[in-house]
């Protein structure tokens, strides 16, 4: 993390409370962070630690109870629908379940056309659009000719996940939020997906925020890691520091619980 880098997304005292009275749940509790441009960040935590709630707040899908989000140095303002749409040009997401990420009534063609429209290419000639779509498909090793007349549910899980990445390629957002992008697919396709995301980062200088419970993945891909427990960030820093020399007992436990191949996996500490 160099000093001259600008944070492109930061938060201070970010809090989300669900319910009230006896049902009150603090899902995210006064979280501070600085995500720098072009970095890959991982947010790691167990189920129920508030990772996805944080992601939804970053995306502007749910309201924030307390705290502020700063986007490229300015306070984020998504008060109106128009401003929200403008914000979503810059921040996009890939979700865990590729099967439920698409509108099943729309063909893949119209999905891509929507993306082009969103980037302001709605008035381009048809040939130009087809060219863009073909390029996006070949980026993720899919063939545009085979997809054009298909519905998303006709594809396999891995293909759908790659289609999501093709969408991102067309939209070219500043920030990509990847919520467990590889947990539903097998290890082999995982390597392919990660490769593509890395390539995207290098090509268009995107900031990628990984949300995952797989600490191995976090270690492998990210520059900095944030560990979340019960809505709080307990430890953060550069990946090598956090994963190889964890200070918090929670982080240590998370790392211990992952099966490894060179070190002994200690089953007695359950």
């Amino acid at each position, binding site marked *: 993390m160099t000093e001259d880098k600008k944070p492109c997304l930061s938060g201070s005292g970010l809090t989300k409370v669900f319910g009230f009275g006896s049902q009150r749940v603090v899902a995210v509790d006064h979280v501070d962070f600085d995500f720098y441009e072009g970095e890959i960040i991982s947010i790691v935590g*167990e*189920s129920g630690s508030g990772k996805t709630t944080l992601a939804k707040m970053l995306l502007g899908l749910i309201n924030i109870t307390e705290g502020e989000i700063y986007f490229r140095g300015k306070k984020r303002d998504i008060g109106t629908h128009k401003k929200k749409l403008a914000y979503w040009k810059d921040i996009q997401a890939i979700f865990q379940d590729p099967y439920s990420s698409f509108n099943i009534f729309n063909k893949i063609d119209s999905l891509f056309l929507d993306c082009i429209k969103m980037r302001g290419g709605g008035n381009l000639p048809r040939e130009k659009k087809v060219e863009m779509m073909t390029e996006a498909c070949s980026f993720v*090793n899919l063939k545009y000719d085979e997809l054009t007349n298909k519905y998303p549910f006709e594809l*396999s*899980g*891995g293909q759908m996940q790659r289609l999501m990445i093709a969408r991102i390629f067309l939209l070219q957002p500043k920030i990509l939020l990847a919520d467990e992008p590889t947990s539903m*697919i*097998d*290890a*082999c*396709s*995982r*390597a*392919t997906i*990660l*490769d593509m995301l890395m390539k995207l980062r290098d090509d268009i200088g995107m900031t990628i925020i990984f949300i995952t*419970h*797989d*600490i*191995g*993945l*976090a*270690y*492998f891909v990210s520059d900095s890691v944030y560990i979340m427990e019960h809505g709080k960030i307990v430890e953060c820093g550069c*990946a*090598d520091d956090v*994963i*190889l020399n964890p200070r918090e007992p929670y982080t240590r*436990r*998370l*790392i211990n*619980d*992952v*099966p*490894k*191949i*060179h*070190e002994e*996996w200690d*089953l007695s500490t*359950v």
Partner: protein
Amino acid sequence: MAKVLLEVKELTTKYITRFREDVYAVDHVSLKVEEGKTLGIAGESGCGKSTLALSLMGYYFAPLHYTSGEIIIDGRNISKMDPDDIRRSILGAEISYIPQAAMNALNPTKKIIRFIEDVILAHDPKITKKEIHEMARDRFETLGLPIEVLNKYPVELSGGMKQRTVIATSVILCPKILIADEPSSALDVTSQKMVIKMLQDLMEKGFIKSMIFITHELPLLYNVTDDIMVMYAGQIVEKGGAKEMVFDPLHPYSKGLMGSIIVPERGLRDVQLTAIPGVPPNLKNPPAGCRFRVRCKYAKFECAHTVDLNEIEGDRFYRCVYSEEELREAYKND
């Protein structure tokens, strides 16, 4: 040599689709599981892992059909038995199967104890409810599960607890073999560890004699199993001890698979991940010869002929036209 509990000879099963097409998802698979051993099965999605697990039970229902081969459980050939007999006397008592996402199989309107009653009564109609309750309580205590769980509804339990309850229930009759198909895939690391710990407890305390463990998560497989078998397009492509398979795979496909391992350990950050290009073949009409040929970078002309499983020393098998030395040489030059 320990007693062989499960022996499968050239088992072939197929799916028949609506359009009367045959899809051979398990193609001439032979394997042996000895007492006290765990066999792991790895492979991509759609390579036939789960179908193999389903076929091993010997109880087929449409669209899955038995074609040929033999399944021998503890000296007893079950492949020619009547399906109803198998259901009554083999399933649950001799061989038990935990399907993928098993925790969703619990009936939300029934308490766990009613579910267990159903399982036991199906095999032994004469047993009294009191005996069942005692048996269940006893078993849960031994396995370290809270006894209150028995009187709860599935919705009151967490994912990890549901999974452990299902496993405890499926082995309540002490089957000889347990087939666990992705028992921990939807769980986070801590619950996963608890599930694995419980499976090992079951082995140690003798409730099950041997286990077949299916997952695509290779570090987990490495830690749990004694032997690993890699499947590709319905066939076995390589088989060997867990350690050899992970650190010294022979078949180009296993090599690619092991190259996709990600673990949080020092120095493993700079490892280049290998992604295998292309997609697995459609099993409706698999390519002749080596099925991996189209995606293999070492493929040559001879690969188009049928390739048999070669045996090399150390009880290892691999399916490739190249010899062991040639393969090692090729990997060294990469």
